[in-house]
Structure formats: C-alpha cells, structure tokens
C-alpha cells in the first residue's frame, strides 16, 4: 500500500517535470526564432572587395641614408585621404616589421588620418591644383620612434616622398600628432614646418 503523501509527491514532481519540459521547449523555440531574426538582418549582398592596386612606397634605409622605391600591390579605398592613409600605413608597417632597414618598433598603423586641403589656403574643395596633405600621426607612433637626426629625417622624407609618388597633386605636407602640433618627431626633426614634397626626393639621395 503506497502512502498518500508519496502519491501526492509523485504527481507534484510529474507536474513539475512537465512544466519544465514545456518551458525548455519554449526557450528553445525562442532561441531558434532569435537566430532566424538575426539571419534576416544580415547583409544579403556580398561585401565589395576593392581590387588591389600598385602603390609606390619610398622606403628608408638607415645604413646609407637613402630612400628606395618599392612597388607593392594593396587594396586601396577610392577617397584620396583614405587612400593616402592606407598607403602610408603600409609604409610604416614595413618599418615595424622585424629586420627592417629603418626600424620603428610598433609603428604599424601610425597614421590616424590624412587630410587633403588646397595648398596655399585656397579654400576651394573642387579645385584641381596643388594640395596640402596634413598627416595626423598617432602619439604611440611618435613615442616609439627612435630618437636621432638621421632616423627622424628619413621617416619624414619617406612619408613626403611616398605621398608625392602616389598622389602627385600633393606638394606640401604638414604633420600633427594626435591632432596637435608637436615641436619634433622624437627630439630632433622639426614637425612645425611645412615640408615640400619636391624637396624630399633629392635631399635623401633616392634610389630609383
């Protein structure tokens, strides 16, 4: 003979099991629905892959104080400012790589933005004349840059020469660090002046 209280307990546990089963089933359905909703909001078009284009990098060499042109293929955005930033960051990635001829440890992605403005303060955005490139470096890049006359000069000249090689309308370059003007790159080279890209190439004894 089964005691009455055990019978009651059995039915209570059976009911709880059924309720839990129903709740679990509903949670499963809800989760499945959420996944389906997520799929609905996913892009239905494949992302556009920018075709790789050749870009000329004027890479510096500390051993002989020269710049050497190096053509690399990389996907480039259409906007000129973003294009300049992508090219310069590839140049700085060369310097950050081990065994670089111009080592700047941790210098990859050292260019935060490049702004292109009419040279000489023309103020017309639709002009087709010479341009001033304002290169905004990250403070991490400046902080990690080795100190020295030659190394800092080569960094500045290689940026100017690379901009000239890829964006011929850029005739002048100014530098900022985290959006602020800074006296020197790493204690030597003047970052307050405007650099002429035409003067960057012969001054450093560029190798073709």
């Amino acid at each position, binding site marked *: 003979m089964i005691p009455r209280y055990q019978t009651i307990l059995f039915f209570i546990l059976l009911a709880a099991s059924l309720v839990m089963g129903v709740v679990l089933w509903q949670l499963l359905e809800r989760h499945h629905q959420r996944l389906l909703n997520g799929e609905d909001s996913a892009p239905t078009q494949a992302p556009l892959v920018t075709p790789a284009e050749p870009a000329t990098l004027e890479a510096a060499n*500390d*051993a*002989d*104080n020269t710049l050497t042109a190096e053509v690399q293929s990389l996907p480039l955005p259409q906007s000129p400012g973003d294009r300049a930033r992508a090219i310069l960051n590839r140049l700085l990635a060369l310097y950050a790589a081990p065994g670089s001829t111009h080592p700047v440890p941790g210098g990859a992605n050292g260019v935060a933005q490049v702004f292109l403005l009419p040279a000489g303060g023309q103020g017309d955005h639709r002009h087709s004349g010479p341009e001033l490139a304002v290169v905004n470096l990250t403070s991490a890049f400046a902080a990690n840059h*080795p*100190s*020295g*006359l*030659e*190394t800092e*000069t080569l960094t500045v000249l290689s940026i100017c020469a690379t901009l000239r090689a890829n964006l011929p309308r850029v005739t002048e370059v100014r530098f900022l660090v985290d959006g602020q003007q800074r*006296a*020197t790159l*790493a*204690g*030597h*080279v*003047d970052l*307050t*002046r405007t*650099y002429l890209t035409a*003067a960057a190439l012969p*001054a*450093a*004894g560029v190798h073709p």
Partner: protein
Amino acid sequence: MHWSKRVLGRRPRVVALAILAAASLMVGAAAQSAPNPAPPAPAAPSARFVVIVDAAHGGDDPGGHIGNQPEKAITLALSVRLRSLLAARGIQVVTMRESDVTLAPDRRAEIANHAKAQACLSLHASTSGFGIHLFTSSLAPASSTPMPAWKTAQAAWVTRSLALSGVLNSALQQAGISVTLGRTSLLGVDSMTCPAVAVEIAPERGEGDTAATMPDDPDYQARVAQALAAALVEWRSEGARL
C-alpha cells in the same frame, strides 16, 4: 681748485702714457730702419675666428639613449673633447653648455648669433645608421637680408654651411670614418646666422653592417673630435684665403 687737484692726481698716469707712446714710436722707427728685415710671416688667419660647439639636449631633455647613457651625456663629452682640441690650436670656442643644463633651441641660436661665429657645430648621437651623419639645413639658399625671419635665418648661410659640411666630410673620411651627408630641418640650427652643421655620431660600421663601436666609446669619440678639429683648422685657413 678741484680741477687742479684732479690733474695733479692724474699726472703719473699721463707721464706713463707719454713714455709708452715714445717707446712704441722708437720701436717702429727701429723696425723700419733695420738693414735686413725679417721674412714676412705666413698669412695670419682671420683675426677673429670663433667656433660654436653646441652639445645638443641637456637638463630636462635627455635626447635618445645609447646603451645605458642618455644622448645628452655623450654630446657633452664630445663637446668637451672638441673644445680642448680647438683651444689647443688657438681657436676661440664658445660652448653652449659645460654641464647638464636645459637650453631651448631658440636660446642656442641666440648665443650662436651673438657670437658671430665662423662655424657652428651642433653635436648629436644616435644608434641608427653608421659613422658620422652630417646634416645641413634643408632651407633653400636665399640672399642675405637686414632683418631675416627667425625660423629661416639660416637660409642666407646654407651655401656656406654646405661648404663647411664638405670640409668636415673630407677630414672625417681622411680619418677613416664613414660619413653620410643629408639635409634636415632642425630647430635652433635653422635660426643660426653662421655656417652651421649638425654632426650626429652613430655606431662605427663593422663587418657585415654590424655596429663595431658605439658612440659612447671614448676612443671613437676622440678620433671623431680629432677629425673635426682638423677640419675646423682647415676651415679657418680657407676663410683666411677668401
């Protein structure tokens, strides 16, 4: 009364001056009447030849780091060596600093410009590259103006700075030290109104592009200082010929 007292008080000085003037006249007359005049002395270099030796950085600004030494210590050591060598050759030297003090680039240019020096050397040190790096201002040469702009005052001296760089290059190469030449924009140097060259001492090149000697090596510094001193003596004699 007072007037006569002052004249009487000055009488011994007046007499001494008169004797000196007479003596100098007699010596001059004797020299002119000498039967065998001494052969003419070699052309004396410019009466006033001043060299500015600027040990870069200092005080709050350590510059870079070479081994376990800050750049400011190495430039000061090189400056002291060079000052001694130049003084021994009878060249008047103005050093920017003799101790670990902070000097702003503009203050350095002010000191150099007041000295009206015939050569200004800004000394630096680095672990990048090899040998000695000689940098002159990247400003475009310009003609001299009565009131040059402060930040581009060196433009009127760029041609002379390049000539000085050539003399330094020759002397360093003769001493067996490799040299690279370049142009740069350096705060302070761009404001100097003298032939100015920034001299950066980097590791000496060894076998297979390795650093044989670091810039903090005293023997290496001594060889560099000797070559720079020899170059400045040559520069002085070139100035006398011009």
